[in-house]
């Protein structure tokens, strides 16, 4: 497992120049591979043909090439460059593109006397690619219509048994292979719920047929698949350009085979480049980067696609710290021009909402905007990080993630745990210590401690899933039942991790509270083999567990080591996503070698930086917010309008429900009243995740049932729009007799000053020259001054500029 990860990471970090080993010959045509050997009637080879463009960039012309051979009847080549054998012999394959021509030597053998078909090597990949063993079909836990395969073919022995032995053996008929139910169903010659999956007499059909004819033997000797590779591993495409991929499987003994037809392809960003079933990658006109995930029998590889804008010059903005050049490098490569720096008012509002979940007051905004000091941005960041609201806000964010749920851990437990989390944040506990404290928590769930974490997660498997997703960014739960479809993780890894949590004893003390005691545990059993799985971290060697000691200590030590490839990346990504509006990896808690960061060098640099800071999150946040990148405007230009993942402009971020409600209260000057809470308490201070509040529900408060950051509703809804426009909450606050609008209207402020106050309170800025006349017009009739002030305030609250952090 360790080895796989290293290979995966190597793929990510190395910049692979496509087909760099071409040499210096003048011919502009290149073919991959340079020679072909086909060794069975059903063998197959995907050719790649490249032509060097004027700029020296290889362009895929596989589908434009004309293919011919002098020696007829040895091979056939499809227009898309797929070579299949016809009969044994040698031939020179001519590849012609325009005026240029090159040849590829082809050798065919094994057609007259074919080598036996292997179930694992040849049959299972076909069942996967044809979708037979997918989760929606026979790969379902209960199978489909009486035929069950292991999902994605992770259990060869069970699949062999299901096909050859079950159902009285009628699925395969060696005597009359074409009458085998397997083939009749797959070709839809008899009614098949899944329809036509394999064409009759196709290559796959012939392979399955021959396997059946050879009496459907189980493999005597299994060729161990070492890994797969994809060519090209990196490609730069023009708008609507395409690239055929070629996938090679490498087996023990360094024997390789082309498995392009059986590989499965998936783009992580269809908006930029999509991949077809045959491995043809096609770009759209959206500039950016995409990763094409290639999957074959539990092995994965990726091809990184870069789609630069086709025109445009790049003027490098200034650099404030190490973050900026790494982002500018990427934008320069993609020819995307970043937006200018955000103006002071926009920056102020953004940094307040991001760090402390609170709007600046009108007075704060006014005085800061007037401050001429050149370092005032840096200073305000530092001040915010030390405000009590920072602890309130981040305690609530972490309580969300840690699933502090009143109903699950009792209200007293929720108070206790929230208090502990808040204390940790207020004293800026290093993140690794914070996590270790959670993982090793013991004692009463009512004490100010993270002990209730073990009450929220009541069993080893739940703990493994949550700990893995929260602190390691690995969604291990797929591996509970089957091989993780996009990763190397399997059931062994899943139960090895869960094995750390088997020693936790939960003693009831009173009224739903527990005393958590960490004891020695025992290894979990593998559900398929029944054998104990020794506890081990993900991708780590079997843990060295001291006898009669709390296993969680060993886990905590492993998980929070700086060398742990996951631990630092996931918190870096979480914070980056919070402040920049989008994770370097998305979804932000789904780190996989096959889901690379949109800027790997930046991710690595940030990870190193946090380790160097000894996990001081405030210092790290200061670095993020000091960067020029964070302070860019959200106003887009023609070149970065479509860019969502390279940080060429600030994002429009939805604010959490609690923050939005507080913003409305603050802007209107009327605090929200929460039943049972003291007057003036703010929503971001409330630990009770189930406090009845229609506003919080409408604005997307999560219910705390999973540690997934996706739980918080980030998408706007019509109910939200209606609520802002019409709800008693919003309307009453706007029109409250002690509210901001009423107070300002009753004051002796002039029209412009009144409007300034409303703008500063709601939007932290002064009205623009374009807005000023509209405001004067609204306030034109002195008799209706209060009504007009209310209308203006209502309008400001309903602006997108108010509702979003931008």
């Amino acid at each position, binding site marked *: 497992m360790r080895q796989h990860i290293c290979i995966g990471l190597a793929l990510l970090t190395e910049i692979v120049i496509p087909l760099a080993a071409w040499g210096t010959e003048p011919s502009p045509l290149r073919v991959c591979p340079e020679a072909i050997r086909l060794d069975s009637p059903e063998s197959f080879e995907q050719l790649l043909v490249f032509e060097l463009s004027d700029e020296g960039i290889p362009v895929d012309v596989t589908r434009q090439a004309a293919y011919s051979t002098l020696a007829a009847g040895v091979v056939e080549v499809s227009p898309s460059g797929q070579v299949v054998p016809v009969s044994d012999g040698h031939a020179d394959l001519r590849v012609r593109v325009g005026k240029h021509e090159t040849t590829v030597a082809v050798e065919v053998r094994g057609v007259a006397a074919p080598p036996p078909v292997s179930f694992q090597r040849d049959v299972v990949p076909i069942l996967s690619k044809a979708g037979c063993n997918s989760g929606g079909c026979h790969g379902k836990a209960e199978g489909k219509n009486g035929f069950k395969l292991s999902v994605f073919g992770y259990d060869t022995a069970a699949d062999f048994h299901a096909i050859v032995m079950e159902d009285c053996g009628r699925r395969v008929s060696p005597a009359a292979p074409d009458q085998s139910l397997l083939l009749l169903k797959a070709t839809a010659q008899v009614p098949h719920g899944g329809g036509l999956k394999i064409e009759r007499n196709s290559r796959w059909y012939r392979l399955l047929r021959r396997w059946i004819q050879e009496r459907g033997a189980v493999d005597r000797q299994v060729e161990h698949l070492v890994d797969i590779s994809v060519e090209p591993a990196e490609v730069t495409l023009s708008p609507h350009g395409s690239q055929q991929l070629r996938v090679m499987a490498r087996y023990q003994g360094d024997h390789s085979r082309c498995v392009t037809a059986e590989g499965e392809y998936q783009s992580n960003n269809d908006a930029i480049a999509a991949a077809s079933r045959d491995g043809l990658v096609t770009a759209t006109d959206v500039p950016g980067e995409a990763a094409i995930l290639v999957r074959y029998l539990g092995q994965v590889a990726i091809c990184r696609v870069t789609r630069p804008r086709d025109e445009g010059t790049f003027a490098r903005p200034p650099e404030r710290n190490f973050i900026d050049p790494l982002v500018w490098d990427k934008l320069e490569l993609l020819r995307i021009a970043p937006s200018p720096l955000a103006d002071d008012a926009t920056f102020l509002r953004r940094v307040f909402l991001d760090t402390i979940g609170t709007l600046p007051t009108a007075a704060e905004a006014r005085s800061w905007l007037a401050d001429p000091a050149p370092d005032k941005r840096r200073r305000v960041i530092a001040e915010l990080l030390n405000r009590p609201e920072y602890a309130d806000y981040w305690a609530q964010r972490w309580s969300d993630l840690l699933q502090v749920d009143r109903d699950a851990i009792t209200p007293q437990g929720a108070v206790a745990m929230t208090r502990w989390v808040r204390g940790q944040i207020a004293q800026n506990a290093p993140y690794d210590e914070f996590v270790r404290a959670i993982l090793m928590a013991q004692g009463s769930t009512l004490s100010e401690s993270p002990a209730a974490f073990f009450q929220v997660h009541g069993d080893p498997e739940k703990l493994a899933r949550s700990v893995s997703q929260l602190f390691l960014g690995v969604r291990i739960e797929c591996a509970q039942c089957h091989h993780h479809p996009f990763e190397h993780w399997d059931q062994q890894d899943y139960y090895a991790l869960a094995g750390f949590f088997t020693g936790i004893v939960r003693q009831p003390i009173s009224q739903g509270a527990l005393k958590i005691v960490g004891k020695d545990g025992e290894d979990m059993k593998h559900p398929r083999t029944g054998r104990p799985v020794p506890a081990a971290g993900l991708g780590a060697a079997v843990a060295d567990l001291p006898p009669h000691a709390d296993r969680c200590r060993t886990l905590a030590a492993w998980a929070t080591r700086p060398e742990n490839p996951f631990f630092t990346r996931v918190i870096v990504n979480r914070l980056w996503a919070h402040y920049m509006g989008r994770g370097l990896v998305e979804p932000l808690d789904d780190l996989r070698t096959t889901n690379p960061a949109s800027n790997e060098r930046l991710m690595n640099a940030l990870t190193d930086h946090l380790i160097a800071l000894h996990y001081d999150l405030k210092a790290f946040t200061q670095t993020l917010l000091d960067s020029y990148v964070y302070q860019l405007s959200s106003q*887009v230009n023609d070149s970065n309008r479509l860019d969502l993942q390279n940080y060429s402009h600030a994002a429009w971020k939805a604010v959490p429900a609690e923050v939005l409600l507080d913003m409305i209260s603050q802007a209107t000057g009327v605090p929200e009243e929460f039943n049972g809470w003291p007057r003036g308490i703010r929503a971001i201070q409330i630990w009770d995740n189930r406090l009845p509040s229609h506003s919080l529900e409408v604005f997307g408060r999560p*219910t705390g049932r999973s540690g997934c950051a996706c739980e918080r509703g980030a998408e706007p809804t*019509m109910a939200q729009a209606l609520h802002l426009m019409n709800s008693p909450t919003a309307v009453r606050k706007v029109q409250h007799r002690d509210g901001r609008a009423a107070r300002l209207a009753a004051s002796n402020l002039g029209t412009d000053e009144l409007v300034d106050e409303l703008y500063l309170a709601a939007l932290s800025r002064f009205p*623009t020259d374009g807005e000023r006349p*509209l405001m004067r017009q609204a306030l034109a009739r002195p008799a209706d001054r209060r009504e007009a002030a209310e209308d203006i305030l209502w*309008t400001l609250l309903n602006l997108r500029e108010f509702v979003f952090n*931008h």
Partner: protein
Amino acid sequence: MWNKVFGTDRRFCDRITRRRMLRVGGTSLLGGLTLPTLLQLQANAATSKPPKAKACIFLMLEGGPSHIDLWDLKPDAPAEVRGPFKPISTVVPGTQISEILPLCSHLADKFTILRSHSHNDNAHQTGRHWVLTGYPPSFADGQAKGVPFNELYPSIGSIVSRELGSDGDVPPYIEVPNALGPGGPGFYGAQYAPFTIDSDPAQPDFSVRDLTVPDSITSERFARRVTLLSEIEQRGAGQQAIGRPQALTSYYERAVDLVTSPQACKAFNVQSESTAMRERYGYTSIGQSALLARRLVEAGCRFIGIDHGSWDTHFDNFASLEKTLAPPMDRAFSALVTDLDQRGMLDDTLVIMMGEMGRTPQINKDVGRDHWSQCQTVILAGGGIKRGALIGATDSTASSPMTQPYGIQDLLRTVFHLLGVDADKVYLTPLGRPLPIVNGGKLIDEVLA
């Protein structure tokens, strides 16, 4: 309050037109942005054949109605099973239902009785979750407190909302009077969440939360506000907004539509129905909810979930049914089907009435009946369903189907088929797991007209 806003003194619906509010300087409200998501949804109707039903009204009898006392009587069963109610004949020869459903007996030729519904989840929350989402939940019953508790699986209404979108100015998925427990959008996200009325249309002061412009705002003032909002949006920072803020704009447009559209405000104004019509449905929660549902279908809503509770008759089953539960349901359902039929809407409006389970044949010591998911009767009408059919039969004590049992997935597959939604369409969950709209199940051909 409702009447004041949408009635004669302050008629948003006609004095200030939606157009006037939306059109400022030649562009629509908030800068002329389109409604990409929503329009795309409407284009997404995933079927080649024209669907039979345009909308679905789902009456959820929460708690589990006693099939053996309502639709599937066993007069020959022993006394400890059969209960006091007598079967009566209906207008369909050979079809008998309970004497406590006299109104339904007169229109049995308009709906289908499916007696062979069966599943194996005998608890409320989990059973309801299964019925409303098509997926057995991953939580244990009783553990999921509060709503919504379907974090993963989208409910029928949210699926319909996503696949069909609205056919008018009203939201595509509306719940009345309260949220259906697991009726949420699951992993589809908040944009497919139901619009929950949270107010009982039988109440004299019924109004829809957040929909009513407050008393203190005259229509002129509201118009001034919306105009100012649109003018600022066109000048301000939001002008260039992409992504989420753009989506919010579309919701604002729809919200303004909803508040100001004559069609929409008329739809919600159940009070504008004649007294005779309101009485026909009954001045009860289920009655007025059903009447409101009909109005919402007329306005283009695709799925209305009616939540009607207290069918969990562990105690005093017979008196509860006879006095409290059956009469309003009998009246509401018969009025709804008759009304839809008379308006020519029954053929393209699917009506379903069921609970999460049936009830035990054995009468318990408290003269009640307990949970019994193995057997339930489902009532179906309109939208491509046979008229007057009796499908399926149960054993001598109504304990289990004697004929082909139909499960929840079969039922939902049939519902989606009629609505023209491809039940095999697959969406990826946040974990990347492919999830078909309905996992398995067979079309129930027998109920199709």
